[in-house]
């Protein structure tokens, strides 16, 4: 068995299946055994997290990414989905909460929705509550600015400048969408900008957790 095959087998492995060829590869391959160890760490950490009501921003971010990747039509293993979002274990409260919410979302997302079916429980993408997303991200940003302590002022300045730039784009796209709700490209960029802001805040939090 090669690493790629083992990757496809990871879900079964995490569920306790141990095919002999997979076990043999697991024993011999440091890369795959490390990946499994990481997944087990995430799974055990996730099991201890309290149930959270995931913020709408995560729906937006997740939906945009899944759609972009074509994953709404493709079944992927839990391991693959977890690895995509959580390359490293979370270390701060903000990152932990984010990961917990995302993990919960990943676990309960319908695996193969038909194209066009919305992810928000009834409405189409046009009914997404951007205002709610905006408020929740603003709250996360305030939390990050208050709690995160990075040592390199250039890095801090870069995060702040880039967050401000993304905010400007959000404002501009929001205006376009308000003017014309059918402006599909403005809507897509608005979703992308919210996703980018989520990513920036997550990265900021992760770097803080790693001590710069």
């Amino acid at each position, binding site marked *: 068995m090669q690493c790629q095959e083992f990757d496809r087998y990871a879900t079964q492995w995490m569920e306790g299946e141990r095919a002999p060829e997979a076990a043999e590869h697991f024993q011999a*391959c440091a*890369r795959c055994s490390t990946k499994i160890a990481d997944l087990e760490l995430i799974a055990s950490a996730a099991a201890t997290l309290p149930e959270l009501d995931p913020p709408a921003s995560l729906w937006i971010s997740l939906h945009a990414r899944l759609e972009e990747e074509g994953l709404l039509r493709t079944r992927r293993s839990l391991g693959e989905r977890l690895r995509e979002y959580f390359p490293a274990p979370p270390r701060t409260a903000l990152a932990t909460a984010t990961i917990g919410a995302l993990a919960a979302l990943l676990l309960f997302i319908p695996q193969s929705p038909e194209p066009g079916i919305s992810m928000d429980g009834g409405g189409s993408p046009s009914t997404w509550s951007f205002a709610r997303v905006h408020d929740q991200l603003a709250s996360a940003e305030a939390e990050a600015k208050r709690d995160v302590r990075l040592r*390199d002022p250039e890095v801090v300045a*870069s995060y702040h*400048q*880039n967050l401000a730039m993304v905010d400007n784009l959000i404002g501009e796209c929001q205006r376009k969408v308000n003017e014309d709700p059918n*402006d599909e*490209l403005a809507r897509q960029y608005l979703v992308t900008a919210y996703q980018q802001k989520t990513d920036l805040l997550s990265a900021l939090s992760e770097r803080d957790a790693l001590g710069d």
Partner: protein
Amino acid sequence: MNAPFRSGAAGWTLGLCSIALLAASSPAAAEPPAGAADAAPAQAGTHRLDKRFNVDGRAMVTLSNAQGTIVVKSWQRMEVEILAEHSSDGVEVDAVQHGNRIELLTHVLRDDISPAELQANYQIFVPEETELEIKNDSGSVSVRQVYADINVDTVLSKVELTDVSGNLTVHTVDGSFTCTRCVGRIEFASTSGGARFLQATTRSLRAQTFSGELFYDGPFSPNGNYKLSTASGPIQLLLSGTDSVKLSVHSRKGNVENQVKLKPESHTFGFLGGRKDSSSLVGTMGTGLARVELTSFSGKIFIRKRD
């Protein structure tokens, strides 16, 4: 797990050489015995680690560093050599081996450390098929002739990948990316960093930045998928008469400037149809084997002839 080697321990070499000098020197020129750490003091104020790890299969090197110059090159040995250097006592380099996985970490020892003291520079020699995961917030990252998956995550670093192949993923906040003769799947995402793709051989390229510039000059593989997207930054694509591409270009508020002859599509993309303040172009060159999508919100898009 092997015992970690630390830059702050007695085994440190105090070296005169900067990483730039290390980069210029041949890796084979100064060979400590395999598996041993150098320990020759040279100059006060500089800490240097020289450590080799034997590997017996596909290796993986992970590096987490705050600030500095990272240079990774391949060689023909089944060894990973780490040359690390920093001038501050406030940071320490840990190098740990778990099987074929080598983990490198620069960590901070004091809370009152100044930004300048965070710097640690690395030169790393690896077998050709070594996976790399590099985090370096500021400075630069350069990788040459490594043929396995490479993942670089940075805030401000300038990233250069040259003659590499595999799944290549680069995320920056503000750092630029240059990909020269890269082979494999390429993904770049940034907020304000730009990217240049020069003579890449890929069937899957996805590049996204908000304000940075994207530039592509290279061949297009049959059935390849190339997506370049910016919010306000410009996009520049070079095409030659022998390319076979199906091109979709959309800018919501910026201009599209096209210098090449395209066969217009009978079915146009409905995104921007009819908007007075938008630009759109859909057409085919040759038999349209590769699919190329260029999208910007307010940036200009240039499609130019390759000389």
